[in-house]
């Protein structure tokens, strides 16, 4: 069933980033000054709740980052496996029905009929003009007008109950895991979690997880029989599109950071530590770069890339690969325009640190520059890097939407919230209005950005030494 694994550029970077985060986690676990703040993060109610939601997004994004070429048997007799030029991800395979059940054109959320009238041939041979039944959405209903409401309600209830049951199972697993380290055993652990007495607010995590699972299983139940968020112009499921857009949003938010971090950290610390002409050079570089309008730079780079890709179309095996390269370039160019902020912060901070007594003491010991930077400066600016990265994330997700809206964002064939909003421009002008694409993009983006913002607030508070003393 599975064909060859395809590693796209962005996939490789995602896993590199994952490795990076993992390594940082191991490093941070050994350092009290990094572990302490994270402990504060997981002890805050907002922190754990948003963490649960963000992990859902990350899970979808990661599943969507494992790509392969499905090979299918073209002719059963010939036993000849033919590689398709199509590249799909693990996530696509997971939600295969969503992907394959394509309607003709627009249909409203949970609808049983198309959103546009068509000529329908009656069994008698006469033609009438009406809204035709959908091919998949609600196809199991014999009499949609009568059964629809009951069916939706039934499916919803099943979904919610399933979600609740799953939550209870998970809660019990949690109690069992906590029990060995608690005085009261299983019952004690359960009491501690449910009353919210423990240090880690498990109760908040469980409630969020419960809500998330209920919504998720509700969506699973309904989208099995209906198009939960309707279909778009070419009949593709909007719910599927919105889910696929998660990867794009996350990638823009994280890869951009990955691209800009080395430059920002290296140049920022160098400028602040060495000062003199090094500082002048770096300062003038980023001041100049900052004065070029970011959108202009992005537009120029993306347009150039577009020309290149249309001139060398044969270099790309699939559409997905092409879209992927564009996404990567977008990340890089966004990174190039956004490293200056962090660089400036780091320059100021390392300038301050250079004058601090312990750095002076290290100089008095004859410690080399590189050692001083690695041992004294870098660890003491890491919290700034972390805060900036987390705060920038939501801004970048929003930036993607804006750039795609003005057509200089990701490839039009790629699913992204920006593209969904872009297409909604025409849909909103239509009569009757098609509102669900926009709404779907809004809901998904809003949830992600809101939880990212809340999370980054918690992280910033945890790492801010001035706030720490007041707790």
């Amino acid at each position, binding site marked *: 069933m599975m064909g060859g694994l395809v590693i796209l550029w962005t996939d490789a970077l995602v896993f590199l980033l994952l490795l990076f985060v993992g390594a940082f986690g191991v490093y941070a676990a050994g350092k*009290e000054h990094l572990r302490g703040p994270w402990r504060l993060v997981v002890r805050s109610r907002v922190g754990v709740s948003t963490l649960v939601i963000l992990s859902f997004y990350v899970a979808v994004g990661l599943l969507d980052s494992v790509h392969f070429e499905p090979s299918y048997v073209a002719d059963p007799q010939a036993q000849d496996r033919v590689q398709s030029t199509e590249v799909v991800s693990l996530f696509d395979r997971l939600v295969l029905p969503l992907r394959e059940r394509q309607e003709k054109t627009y249909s409203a959320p949970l609808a049983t009929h198309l959103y546009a009238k068509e000529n329908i041939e009656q069994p008698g041979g006469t033609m009438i003009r009406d809204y035709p039944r959908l091919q998949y959405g609600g196809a199991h209903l014999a009499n949609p007008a009568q059964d629809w409401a009951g069916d939706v309600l039934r499916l919803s209830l099943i979904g919610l109950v399933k979600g609740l049951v799953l939550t209870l199972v998970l809660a019990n697993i949690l109690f069992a895991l906590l029990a060995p380290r608690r005085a009261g055993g299983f019952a004690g652990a359960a009491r501690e979690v449910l009353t919210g007495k423990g240090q880690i607010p498990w109760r908040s995590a469980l409630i969020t997880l419960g809500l998330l699972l209920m919504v998720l299983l509700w969506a699973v139940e309904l989208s099995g029989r209906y198009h939960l968020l309707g279909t778009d112009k070419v009949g593709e499921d909007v719910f599927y599109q919105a889910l696929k857009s998660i990867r794009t949003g996350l990638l823009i938010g994280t890869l951009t950071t990955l691209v800009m971090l080395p430059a920002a950290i290296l140049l920022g610390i160098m400028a602040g530590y060495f000062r003199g002409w090094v500082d002048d050079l770096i300062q003038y570089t980023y001041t100049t770069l900052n004065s070029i309008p970011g959108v202009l730079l992005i537009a120029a780079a993306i347009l150039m890339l577009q020309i290149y890709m249309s001139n060398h179309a044969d270099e790309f095996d699939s559409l997905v690969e092409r879209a992927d390269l564009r996404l990567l370039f977008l990340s890089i160019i966004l990174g190039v325009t956004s490293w200056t902020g962090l660089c400036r912060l780091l320059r100021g901070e390392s300038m301050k640190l250079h004058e601090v007594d*312990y750095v002076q*003491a290290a100089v008095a010991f*004859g410690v080399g520059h590189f050692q001083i930077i690695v041992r004294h400066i870098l660890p*003491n600016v890491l919290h700034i890097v972390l805060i900036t990265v987390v705060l920038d994330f939501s801004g970048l997700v929003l930036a993607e939407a804006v750039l795609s809206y003005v057509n200089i964002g990701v490839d039009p064939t790629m699913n992204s919230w920006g593209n969904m909003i872009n297409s909604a421009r025409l849909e909103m002008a239509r009569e009757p209005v098609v509102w669900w694409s926009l709404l779907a993009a809004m809901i998904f983006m809003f949830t992600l950005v809101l939880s990212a913002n809340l999370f980054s607030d918690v992280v910033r508070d945890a790492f801010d030494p001035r706030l720490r003393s007041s707790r």
Partner: protein
Amino acid sequence: MSEILLKVENLQTWLGSGEHPVRAVDGIDLQIQKGETFALLGESGCGKSMTALSLMRLLPPAGRIVGGDVYLGKTALLELPEYAMREERGGRMAMIFQEPMTSLNPVLTIGRQIGEAVKIRDGGDRRAVAQRVVELLHSVGIPDPVRRVGEYPHQLSGGMKQRVMIAMALAGRPELLIADEPTTALDVTIQAQVLALLKELQQQTGMAILLITHDLGVVAEVADRVAVMYAGQIIEQASRDRFFDNPQHPYSRKLFQSLPDAGKRSRRLAVISGNVPPLNQVFTACRFIDRCDRAFEDCEMAPGWTELAPGQGVRCHLAGFQDAVSIVELPEVEHAPVNAGSSPGSNQEPLLQVEQLKVHFPIHKGVFKRTVGHVRAVDGISLSIDPGKTLALVGESGCGKTTVGKGILQLVRPTAGTVRFAGDEMTRLKGSALRSRRSALQIIFQDPVASMNPRMLVGDIIEEGMKAQRIGRTAEQRRARVTELLGQVGLPDDSASRYPHEFSGGQRQRICIARALAVDPKLIICDEPTSALDVSVQAQILNLLKMLQNSRGLAFLFITHNISVVAYLADEVAVMYLGRIVERGEVGQLLAAPRHPYTQALLSAVPVADPRSKHEVIRLEGDMPSPANPPAGCHFHPRCPFAMPRCRERYPDLNRLGDGRQVSCYKVEQEEA
């Protein structure tokens, strides 16, 4: 009998919530009479500032008053609603803070800021307010108040800013002025000015002053009555003279004994072992029991307040046996030989020889960063230190003494001059040649918090220099040495695997000393190593430094503004003013009979912890000029009471006098001739 102005009964203030709130103020009773100066004395963290803030009801968000009563006259302050309390604050009671730099709004002129306070109190039209502002500025001794009204805080010096703060406090014609360490951030000569001003204002207006301080000298200088705070409680209260004559509480006695001075040179200073206990507990025993060398069984029970005489009391079980306490001499402090190995007058090569050292910082202006002038932080300094000796470099803040230290260490590259250290010309060395010679010359900084990387373990911090200097070949050897060093500075072995923030200020300073010792230096530059520490902790560090000097033959360049530390520790003293040395000589000689007018003024301004030493304070006018634009001729002449026409023309040379000391002053030259 004078009237009681402020009466505090059983005041309790807690900080933080949760299971263990910090009981910062734990049951304080005090009474302040009209027109008197009441000093609240205590070390850092004992709750004295919290007491003041509680009285003003200006506690930080985490703090709350949980019990007690405060009466100002007949008004119960703690029961007033907030709007009425606002009337009292800045009205009948006003407060000035330690840090005048942050207490003023930098974007408003001082006239506006004082005017605001005046308008709230007096109302009235703009003309009347402006007039009152000028009047207030005049009363706090700011010269040319009409012009100063339109100036911004950054145009004023620290002492001036504190005067402006006092003027603001006076706007409401307060009956009680709470001064929270009003002179701690100021230099001694400025401190003398401000203290004199406070006294003068008190005589004019008849207000009472609650003076919060840690400085026994300041208390001796201005207070009428004294209360000593320890761990959130008042442990002793007496009139100033009685307190200084015969302190009752063992803690108060220890405080006096731990003060360094010339008379204690040959001895170790008394130290109070351990630290102030954490205040987030309920005490059943005496709070001082762990640190008290007179503790006995009864001390397991918290002592009550014993009234010895009207207005005098002590919180100690020994108070009842008052005679016994005063008769029994405290155990003789252990003697230690000082500088036993050094032979005076030996003509060996000095360890460090600095000639005409200059450090100028360029001032850049404009787009192209043109150099428009120089800050002459250090302007031609010569000094030398013999092996195993201590040279103290004394001066007020901004005179360039820290820059001298950094210039010698090549942390700041000197503009001109030579620094010969153990045969090497340091200013010419570069790169790895310089790096390899750094081990012999080390530095200890003022702030023990900032001088260690908070992200590193103590063991790694001490090891850093050894690694850089390739001392100790294997990791085990280095580890063994770290343990040995920790033992030498009196820290437990397991300190190596802990982080700096787990230690108290004094312990951190010990770690810094261990770090410097790790590379076997011959000379350590001590840049105000004790000025961030409490008196009792300062004594520990001074003892340690002295002990190390004896056992290792270390030489110290001791940079400080604290004259009593100089008297205790130094062999030779150099006094700096505005980037130059004005007087230099042997310690006893110089401190006993200073010759340069600046040295004389500086020494006279130092508050002495003895109210009966009636020394005349020579009050200097104005502040130290900016080193970017020093006055022509002798830098000191604008403030010098003996300035002659010659002084305005040429800077006097540093001349050697008959008794061996060097002074740069025309007046002294004349007298000698």
